[in-house]
Every structure is written in structure tokens, then in C-alpha cells.
């Protein structure tokens, strides 16, 4: 079993911090910058994931789709959705070495949201990230980030990636 360096774990943690901070600031270009050109993002219910059903809540299976996710949030849906503030809480639960500078990582996550009208805070979803990460040239990026949500019934519509 390959030993995982402290530096690699630090970079995986830093990438995750960049990711959740981008979302909590609703800085979509910064969210996009967490992925490399092979990047994919999926937000999927645990029920579908477990039963091998491919339907997701969000399925960005190429870099162009990731770019379009930014366009959707910034340009298309901005005036029709009710804004909410998110706070992501994550915990690294496993890291394994894949190959060629790639790492598999898993984080648990919980995401709270605060409605801009009522200012009340509720739980949006809980789950785990299943990541494939590239670390090269001293920087880490997502090849694949799957947000698998245990919250199979979402408490509301979800306007932003998790």
C-alpha cells in the first residue's frame, strides 16, 4: 500500500476548502477553478447511487457542462430563484492512492442554508463527497467530485451545487 504524504493530504484538504468556500461565497468561477479540464461533477441521491440508477440532481459530465453550470447560476436563474446562503461543513474520512498522481478521497458533508427572506436556517442535505483528485505541479484539482446525498428527499429546490 502506497504511503500518502502529509503534503498530499494537505493539498486534498486545501482543494476541498477552496471548493466549499467558493460555494459559500457563491463565487462560481472559483468553484469552476477547482476542476481540471477533464473535470466532472455529480450531485446525486444516495438511493439512486446505491441502486445504480444514473439520474442525478445535477450531472456535469464534461468541462463544458461545468462552465454551463456557472452560466446557469450566474446568468439564467438569478432573477427567478430565491437566494439562500449556504454553509458547508466537511470532514475528510479517507484518502487512497489511485495512480499517476491521482488520489481517491471521501469527505462527509453537511450543508445548512439560510433563506434570505426569513433569515431562518435549516439543513439542506447531508452526505459524502467521493472524489478523484489530480495532484500535479504542486496543485490539486478535481477530475471527479460526486456529492452523494443521504437526503434522498431534498427539503426544497437546490439552486447551487453542493
Amino acid at each position: 500500500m502506497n504511503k500518502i504524504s502529509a503534503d498530499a493530504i494537505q493539498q486534498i484538504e486545501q482543494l476541498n476548502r477552496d471548493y466549499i468556500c467558493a460555494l459559500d461565497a457563491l463565487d462560481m468561477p472559483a468553484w469552476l477553478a477547482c476542476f481540471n479540464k477533464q473535470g466532472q461533477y455529480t450531485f446525486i441521491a444516495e438511493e439512486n447511487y446505491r441502486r445504480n440508477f444514473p439520474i442525478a440532481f445535477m450531472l456535469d459530465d464534461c468541462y463544458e457542462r461545468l462552465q454551463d453550470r456557472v452560466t446557469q447560476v450566474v446568468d439564467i436563474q438569478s432573477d427567478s430563484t430565491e437566494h439562500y446562503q449556504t454553509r458547508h461543513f466537511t470532514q475528510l474520512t479517507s484518502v487512497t492512492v489511485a495512480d499517476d498522481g491521482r488520489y481517491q478521497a471521501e469527505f462527509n458533508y453537511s450543508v445548512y442554508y439560510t433563506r434570505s427572506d426569513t433569515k431562518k436556517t435549516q439543513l439542506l442535505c447531508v452526505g459524502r463527497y467521493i472524489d478523484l483528485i489530480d495532484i500535479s505541479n504542486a496543485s490539486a484539482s478535481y477530475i471527479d467530485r460526486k456529492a452523494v446525498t443521504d437526503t434522498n428527499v431534498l427539503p426544497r429546490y437546490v439552486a447551487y451545487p453542493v
Partner: protein
Amino acid sequence: MANQKNEEPLLIWPKKYNEVPKAVFEMEELWPKELKSIFYGEEWHPIVHRAEIPNPGDYKAAELGEMPIFAVHGEDGVIRVFQNTCTHRGTALVTECAGNKKEFECPYHRWLFSLEGELVGCPNSREFTPDFDKKNFGLHQLRVEGFCGLYWVTMSDKTPPLKEYLGESFYEPLSRILGGDGRLKLIGYQKVMYDCNWKAYCDNDGYHAPLLHKAFALLNWQGGKGFQKVTENGHLAFESEIKVPDQVEALKDASILDFKGTGTSSGSIVLMSFPLTVFSKHMDMLNVRYAFPKGPKGIEVHYAYFTHEDDDEEMVRHRIRQSSNLLGPCGLVSMEDASVFSRIDKGNKTPGNAVFQKGVEDEYKLSFTVKQNDESGNLPRWEHYRKIMGFKRAEQ
């Protein structure tokens, strides 16, 4: 029980046919009457498609009103729907939303039921009442009818046969949403709670589509010719061409908007069966939206998506990408509807009536002639609801 003839009416309906009292979305005391008259009344409610439980022993749990039920694929290939309760002391038999079982065993006293609902075992039965007979203790089965693989239930013996109930203007396009022949494969669900009354959820109309959905304009995505058909018992069918431009400049990957089409498809079909189920086929997405009101406030919607058994790999992939990104609680198009459900709920806490205008030619007459982008197609539904609930109109 109180004599209903002497009860004060819960609500007086406006005299104009194009007005709906906003209180109808907010009055919690309407819910018991809606349960009795609509959900347990003479209506059909779709519960499961055969593609969701394709093998013997597969089951799916659901709710009819507040009653837990489950559909089972029997060893004999027949799909039945049972109340989710042991016939002994009432314990729920299934607790997962779906699964596969060889039989259904109640954990409390180990009463055992076959996939066909017969009681096949009950420990210590020699000590039961003298006239106890297992034959009398099978699971409580609901009346079921299938159409293109989709199974509907009703609590009433008086409900007309399903095809008669739906009418040809509804079941013909429904057959096309269900792949023409019902040979579908399930590809997954999107499930969400919307925080509005169930009637607000299903009051979407033909007027809003080009106006609310900014995506349509930004994508230069214009609907072609189309029509609406309404029935006296509140079913609504929209059908239209979809013209997706060759070049969609707003998106880097416009392939999710491709319309590949099949022999049974036209661009966009949206159906709403009374009281609250939506079926849609936008481009290549085949979607049934099972909806479960959680009392007077809140509705849980399960978007079920399908492919057709004859689809090739490319078409399956296309349907998955399109379905995951355009519809549902995060979808490019329908998220805007979800936003409106929430705002409607907020706005309806004010007094007065919601007023329908688009397509209304005579406020004092109900019309079944509705153009593609009219909102008046919802008015026969409201009239059907008013009659079932027994609300009188104000005097003219």
C-alpha cells in the same frame, strides 16, 4: 358525527368562474374533506410503473392521501397494491421505499403474507378464535387498473374504468409519454419537498411558460404550434412542437437540449391528471411526477425518469443527461416552477381571490376551448374541485 346538512359552509366560492379564493390554499380545515372526497373518493391515482418493480418480489411503497400503501410484483406477474398494514394488529409491513422480498413478514407476531397478499402463516393459530380462517385475513387490496404499464388505484367501487375516467384526449398522449407501448426502464428518481399547498403545486398553466422561464429566452428556445385539451373532470393535456435552434450561444455544451425524437414523440407533452399528477415528455425526457401531499401544507414530489427498452446506448445516455439537468428540483427549466410554488404560498396568505385572465372570454361561463398559452385551461379543474368539495358559488 355532526349532521353535515347543518354545517356552515367552509368556503363560499366567487361568482366569477375565473376567480379562485386564495383561502383555498391556506385553510387547513379543508384537508380532511379533501382526503375523503378526493384522495379516498372517486378518482384514480397513479402509483407505480411496471418498470419500477420489474421482477417478482419487487415492491414500492407510496401513500394515498394519508394512507400508506405498497405495490408488489407477484410471482404470477400481476401487480397488486395493498394497504401497508398487517391484518392482525395493524403494524406496517414495509418500511423501505422500495426493495425485493420473497414474502412479507410482520415482525410483531410473525404473520406471513405471500407476494399475492394471502396470509400463509400465523404462529399459534390453534389458540385463535373458533371461527378464525386465514382466508379472511389476506392483505387489504386496492382496486387497480393498468395503462401502458402504469398502475392506478382508487378507493371507490364507483370510479369509472380508468380509460373512461381519463378520456381519449388524455390517455392517447399519455401512451406516448409512456413510450407508446409502456416498455420502459427506470433510470432513477429525483425527490423533493415543496413548501406549498398541494393545489398550488398543480395549478401551473400554459400562460407562464414563455414568461417565467428565462431559460427559454436565453436559449432562444421557442415553442412551436401547440394546443391544450381539458376534460370536465379536471384532466389537462398540453402538447406543442419544440423548436430548438441549431446554435445555442448561451451554452458551451448545447447537446443536452438536443431533440432526437422517436416514432412516438412530439416535442413537448405535459399532462396533469386530477387531482395532482404531472406527466411530461419534453424533448427526450420521459417523466412521471408522483406527488404526495403532506397534509394541508407541503407536498413531496417524486420525479421518476424512464428510458425505452428499445433505446440504444447513445439515446439512454442522452435521456440521462437531459433528465438530470433540465427537470426536477435543480433543473435548468423546472427549478423556476419550484421557486414560484414557494412564492405562491407566501402570497396566498393575503385576502381575496386569485384571478385568471389569459384566455377567459366570459367570466360567468366555463369554457373548454383553450389555446396553447392560455391559463384558462385550469378553470375546469377548479370547477371540478369546487363541485367535489361542495362549495356553493356566491349569488350573481
